[in-house]
């Protein structure tokens, strides 16, 4: 071929002059990840300094430093109690839930080749909500509620997976999986309504309603293990296998032709994303929007390649939910449930992202 300029070589499609595609700058995705990590640390430290029982930064650093080296305490017992039993657990749980929801949202969007997918697609949230409602009806403790919600979330997704395997033996298994997920979700939503309907309207009903709205008010050190363990088990494979997930954006067959065992990858991702979603909902209630919006924002910042996009989602999601929780506990005299704030902030933000994005999905 002759050496001509780039524009001469451009292959035009069926006579229609296409708009010249934008030549994007080569992204400095690694640098963006470092910046996001710094942002996360800043939000993390700042979270201690706001709200009731605020701990100023110098005192906080002193506490950390002296604890680390086992030096005698120089601070009050109240500070000790608030910091280690309430503030630190809550901040860590907010970080984990934000990171978990965003990671599973990003994973599901890649898995189902659809940017409109959110982590509750296979029924994990509805299942967890039902489990919590049942545990509240039976006057379970906070830990029982968390455990029941977690188990029912897992059961709901297992149900979705098994039913879709039974009816969708041949082709288009992804579509059948998503549709089955919708069916199972609405089934469990109906069960939640049933639980509410039969609940005592004086105490149980409001308790269920408040739980479903989501919030981290009652988080203490006890609750951490039941979210930390599933989080670690779920997030590690999701991060390790993330490059392979890219192939699935091109569809099942193309991914196989590229050398990816799509059945195995899909199975692992569904298990891991379900662990993340179910444990998050079980701990913080039905917090929507995070798993849908954050992957979009991450894709806008570092591009769709999951090698960068998944870590970016994890960092952004953690910082985002922590910030929302800070707002929830400081801006108003009464704490606003998280799901309300994530929707009020998330919805217009999502519209902004859509308006700013390209015609193809960001």
């Amino acid at each position: 071929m002759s050496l001509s300029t780039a524009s001469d070589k451009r292959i035009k499609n069926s006579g229609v002059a296409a708009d010249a595609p934008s030549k994007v700058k080569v992204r400095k995705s690694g640098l963006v990840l470092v910046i996001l990590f710094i942002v996360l640390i800043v939000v993390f430290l700042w979270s201690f300094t706001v709200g009731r029982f605020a701990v100023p930064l110098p005192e906080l650093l002193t506490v950390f430093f002296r604890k680390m080296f086992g030096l005698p305490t120089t601070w009050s017992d109240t500070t000790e109690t608030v910091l280690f039993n309430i503030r630190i657990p809550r901040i860590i749980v907010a970080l984990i839930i934000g990171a978990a929801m965003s990671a599973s949202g990003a994973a599901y969007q890649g898995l189902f080749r659809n940017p409109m997918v959110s982590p509750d697609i296979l029924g994990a949230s509805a299942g967890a909500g039902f489990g919590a409602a049942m545990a509240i009806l039976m006057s379970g403790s906070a830990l029982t509620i968390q455990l029941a919600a977690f188990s029912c979330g897992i059961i709901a997704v297992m149900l979705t997976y098994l039913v879709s395997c039974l009816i969708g033996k041949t082709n288009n298994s992804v579509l059948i999986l998503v549709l089955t997920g919708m069916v199972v979700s609405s089934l469990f939503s109906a069960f939640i309504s049933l639980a509410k309907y039969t609940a005592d309207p004086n105490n149980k009903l409001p308790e269920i309603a408040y739980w479903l709205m989501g919030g981290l008010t009652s988080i203490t050190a006890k609750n951490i293990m039941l979210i930390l363990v599933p989080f670690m088990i779920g997030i590690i494979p999701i991060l390790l296998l993330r490059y392979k997930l890219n192939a699935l954006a091109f569809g099942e067959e193309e991914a196989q032709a590229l050398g990816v065992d799509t059945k195995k990858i899909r199975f692992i991702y569904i298990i891991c994303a379900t662990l993340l979603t179910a444990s998050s909902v079980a701990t913080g209630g039905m917090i929507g929007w995070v798993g849908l919006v954050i992957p979009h924002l991450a894709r806008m910042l570092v591009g769709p390649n999951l090698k960068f996009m998944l870590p970016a989602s994890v960092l952004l999601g953690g910082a985002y939910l922590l910030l929302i929780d800070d707002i929830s506990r400081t801006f108003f005299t009464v704490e606003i449930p998280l799901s309300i704030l994530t929707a009020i902030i998330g919805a217009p933000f999502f519209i902004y992202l859509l308006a700013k994005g390209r015609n193809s999905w960001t």
Partner: protein
Amino acid sequence: MILEIKDASFGYSKRTVLRDISFKVASGELFCLLGPNGVGKTTLFKSILGFIDVRGGEITLNGENIRKWSKPRLAKAIGYVPQAHTPPFPYTVLDVILMGRMAHLGLFSSPSKDDVKIAEESLETLSISFLKNMIYTEISGGERQMVLIARAMTQKPQLLILDEPTSNLDYGNQVRVLLQIKKLSDEGIGVVMTSHFPNHAFLCSSKVALLNKNGFEVGTTDELITERNMRDTYGINVKIAKVADNHGVNIRSCVPLAN
């Protein structure tokens, strides 16, 4: 490299689409599959690529049955160029081409600098280096088709399977893409492709397979692309014309007739 299909039958759970198919493709051969819509060309491809199981008979590569091969092993041997379509996410062209390295990477790794080098070589071979940093979903259909070929080349397979690589392309791009594929086969890769145009086979094929209701036949273009065979296959009347090119070499062309 030699791909051999021995007395194989292909189909889906309830029906068998093709029976007793046998043929061989060796390195450097360009094998063009012609046949009407719905005759089973895609089914045949899907079976070779391992998307659906073979029903009887076997498919071997260098004498070894590929049925039990893992996906990465199969991908290292056989590259697939699908019809260009738009993925839901705006990957860059380089991202897309690098995915060709996936079969060569460990389970947890992502492409290295060496992989980028291989991807860039493919871009250069196809003279599309200028697309490298563009967004795959925003380039034209012809360019996307070229990128998919580059991706398959980056996979470094011994055999390339192309499913109607010229569909959706304008006249000039059809010829450009075909010549590029011919160049790859001249360099020693085995190529199997489908086309809807007998002229495409005249342009570049070394072997033709004709698939119609009478069965499956393999031969040279001269043997198989005849006026009678075309009528039997597509149900239309054609004239095979001979013209001399600028160097006096005879080339043949299949021209449809209005009556």
